[in-house]
Every structure is written in C-alpha cells, then in structure tokens.
C-alpha cells in the first residue's frame, strides 16, 4: 500500500445482532422454498416462472448483500456501485431474453 493518502478515518463498525442474522436466514430459507415450489408446481407458466425465479433470486441476493455483507451500514457509494453493476447485469439478461422471446 502506498503510504500517501492512507488516512482511512475509522467509521463506527456496526455489529449486527444475533436476532437480525437469524431473521435474515429464516427469510432466505422461505424464499428458497418459494423458488422450489414455483419450479415444481408452476412449470407450465414457462416464461413467467423463469421471471419469478429470477425475481426471487434477486431479492435473496439483495438481502444477503444488505444484511450479511453489511451494505446497509456502509457508505452510500457502495450501494450506488452495486446498483450500477446490477443494472448492467439486468440489461444483459433483458437483451438475451428479448432475443429468445422474439424468435420464431
């Protein structure tokens, strides 16, 4: 590390409570069950079931990022950067799916 500019001011570390961790975990399990449920019983919904699966997966990723990975308690710049990356990724998916949906 270059020693210039190394004045990383210590910002208050947030310590998550046991309850919060546990609650997050329960939420993730519920969402996983939902994914399984939809893929088993909603298979004939085709595109719609793919869309819901993606939606649930995104919510799970968000929860992991926010609570387990502490995005919620970090400076906003990290959330913005995550947002840009996710937006880019969404455009990739949308354009690929657009190709699939418009094929004959």
């Amino acid at each position: 590390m270059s020693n210039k500019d190394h004045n990383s001011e210590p910002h208050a570390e947030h310590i998550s409570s046991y309850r919060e961790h546990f609650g997050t975990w329960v939420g993730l399990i519920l969402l996983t069950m939902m994914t399984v449920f939809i893929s088993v019983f909603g298979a004939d919904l085709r595109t719609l079931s793919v869309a819901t699966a993606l939606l649930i997966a995104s919510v799970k990723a968000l929860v992991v990022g926010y609570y387990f990975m502490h995005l919620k308690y970090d400076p906003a710049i990290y959330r913005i950067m995550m947002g840009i990356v996710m937006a880019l990724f969404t455009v990739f998916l949308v354009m690929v799916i657009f190709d699939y949906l418009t094929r004959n």
Partner: protein
Amino acid sequence: MSETAAMPLNYLNVKKGIWSWLFTLDHKRIALLYLYSIGAFFLVGVVLGVVMRLELFNPGRDIIEPQTYNQVFTLHGVIMIFLFIIPSIPAVFGNFFLPIMLGTDDVAFPRLNLFSWYLYIIGALFALSTLIYGNGPADTGWTFYAPYSVKTGTNVSMSVLAAFILGFSSILTGLNFIVTIHRLRTPGMTFNKMPLFSWALYATSWIQVLATPVIGITLMMIIAERMFGVGLFDPSIGGDPILYQHLFWIYSHPAVYIMALPAMGVVSEIIPTFAQRSIFGYKPIAYSSMAIAFVGYFVWGHHMFTSGMSGAAAIVFSILTFLVAIPTAIKVFNWVATLYKGSIDIQVPLLYALAFIFNFLIGGLTGLVLGALVVDVHVHDTYFVVGHFHYVMFGGTGFAFFGALHYWFPKIWGKMYNKTRANLAFALLFIGFNTLYFPMLVLGIMGMPRRYYDYLPEFHSLNQISTVGSWILVVGLLLMIFNLVAGYLKGQKVGGNPWNGITLEWQTDSPPPLHNFDKMPELPAGGPYNYPNAKSE
C-alpha cells in the same frame, strides 16, 4: 558498465539480481516483466501466423495437415488475444506510466500488481502446456463455440482454464488502476486535468472489472459441460448453443475496447507532443472513452447475426453498433484537428500514431460494413472478417503499442535508439502490414471463408500477395526489435525530456528514480497539454 558508479540511482540500478526482479513491488519493474513476457508470447503468435500464411501460399496441402491448421489458428488466436493484445498497453505502459503521469510513487496495490503478473505467467504456461499435454491444443477457434468445444477430443478444458486465469490477471490490473486513479492523483490534479492516457485506462479498467467475470463463468460452464454433461449448451442434451454465443460475446465485445481504448490513449499523448500544441477537444476525447466503454456493453449481438438469433434482436444490435462509431469518430476528428496548425515534428512515435489512425480507420469502417445486417449475412465468417479484426487489433492497437514503445523508450531506459533504422523498420511494418491484410478484405468479398487450410484456385494470386506481405512484415519486426535492443545496449544517453513533452513523466529523470520523482512535480499551468511554445492561432 563502468559509468554505473557515477550514475544517479534509478529504478534499474538501485538493486541487482534476478530476485530483485521476481519479487519487485515497483510498478516500473513489473511493467518491464510484462513487456518481456508479452513480447515473447507475441513472437510465438507471429510464428504461428506466418506458418498459416505459408500453408496458404498455394491451394491444397503445403506444409501442415488440416487438423494441425485448425489447432494453429486456435492457438494463434488465443495467444494474440489473451496473452498479447488484452494485457499489452495497460499492463506494460499503463503500469509504468499511470502512476508517474498522476504524480505518485506507485499503484494503489503493489503486491496485487505483482500477483497479477504471476497469474498472467501461470495462465500463459497453461495455454502453452496444451502443446505437450492432453490431445493437443484446442481446434475450436479462439471463440470456443459450443457444441463443438464440448465434443472435440482436443484439450479444450486446459485452454479454457488458461483463459479463465488470464481473466483474473486482467481484473486485478483494472481494479488496481481504478483505485489508483481515484485515490492517488497528485494534489491539484482533478479528473479533468489528468492526461488522456489515464482517462483511457480508467474507461478500460471499468470494462476489465465488470465484463471479465462474464467470460470467467462462461468458460467454467464449458468445462462443466465437458466433464459432467450438464446440458447448458449442447442441444443433444437440452442445451442451447446460442446461449453460449450470447455469454461469450457479452464479454468479448467489450474486450475489443479493452484492446482499443488504451491505444487511443497512447495516440492522444503522442500527437500533442509532436505537434507541440494543446490537444483539440480534451473533454470530448476524455468523455468519449467513457461513452465507448458504456455503449460497447450493448452491441455484442452483432457477432451473432447469422447464428439463429431473432430478427428483432438483430435489428436492435445493428442500430446500437452504429452508435459506437460516433464517439470513435469524435476522437479521430479531434486528433486530426490537433495536428492542424501545429508545429509538427515527424518523429518515429508520430509515424506510428498516424499509422494507427490510418489502419484503425480501415478497421473501423469495415466494422460498420459488418455491423450492417444485410451485408454481414454475406461476409460473415469470410476473410473480410479476418482482415477487419487484424486492421483493428494489429494495425490499430499493435501499431499503437509499437508507437508507445518508441515514444517512452528514452524515458524507460534513458537512452535513444537509432532513428534512421527506426524509420526504416516502420516503413517495412506499414507496407508489410497492408500488403498482408488488404488482400484479405478483397478475398472475403469474393467469398473465401475463414478457418480453412485450403481454397479454390481463383483465390490463388491474392493469397500469394498476402503471404509475401507477411514476409515484409516479419523483416520489419525483426529490424525494429534489433534496433530497440541495440538502443538499449549502446544507445545515446538522453536527458529527462527528449521530445519536449509536458505531461508529468517528462519532468523526472530518465530512467526515473525508484520513487518516480525526487522533487514534487509541478502541474503545467492551464491543463496537461498547454504547450508553452505553441503558436497562437
């Protein structure tokens, strides 16, 4: 050398011995490690290219079997893309000059920097190991298209693993540069006072960080498919080969901007120095790098017009492709406008920069031809494409790399090469290059398909011209290398600023001291290209 005792300490003589290089954390030495290794692999790639041209001198079998030919063009492509052109300018000149141009003493993470060089070497060894291990190098083309890449017996897994590791090296370099640019600029240097080379590297780094992971996971999917038959890409087990092409090009199109943007950065440095005139349109050039990087993410489908993608999607991708041409043209016009009424001093680096503009224009305009939906249906997978991408990558970025080498040579080693010989080598390279590749554009329009070791008799004479071009090119290359090595060994000593440049690297000694500057560099008043002797208009 006897005069070393009297020489001031610099990054080259401050420590000696092989270990002082292999464990160095100095960005300048790491840059040279990259230069030597990238240069070596480039030469391997050139040999493979020349072998192909020899085979194509006459129709029918000349020197190698069809299967060998397939493996040769694949290895040639893999080496040239992943080992040469992607790392080339950022890893060598970015590493060496980004910190100096920003007025700081190193990149943000020197250890990570060294680590990415080791990753590069490991990836390179993996790629070359297919020559002796497994069933020989992959025969899929550098694109590893499924389902063939899933089925062929050649060592695709190892080649793909190599590309995966090289991707990590690239990501780490990009990450390092982003943090360096954000955190380590010298006081007073705002973003809009950075040299344009830093802007180009900044845009490139974002592509490296955000696009490379996509190819990483895609290549892992190929390995999973080969080993476990997951059914991702192979239609016989329920996969979709077009999905592979989407994933592959989501990375590989932005990757062509990893190749092109740093080259444009180099040209934006060379031109104002040899015109002794402030750059025309600093902000348009800087921001168009960002615009190219951004729009470049959304055009990947133009590689798939004939592969079964939907017509509606093809139209969207075609339109977006035409949009990327705009920021690229902005740069070209600004460079030319910079030369206008400048005090032009035609030295070797400027010749390379002008050759870049010439070749890149041909490459870029043929790119637009390919981006036009109806035309692409005819020329897709012909030699027109081979001609097009060599004009962009070799004629463009390759020539910018050579130009950067000649521009910064005196700064890196503190000596000057023989300029007459350098001019001669340049002329041979330029003539050889165009003789080699221009016929390919014509052959493509005539309908000669790419990736074949044989061709119809009517293509004979143009193929012979092309092969003769490759010989001229090789002579030029050897002369250039000989001249630079001779310059390194016994060239004239030069001072800190042989070209009268004003970006910060010209304020320090040649070669620079270990920590780049002995005294704080001064930012030129009125921006990075405000030449004091510029003629007023």
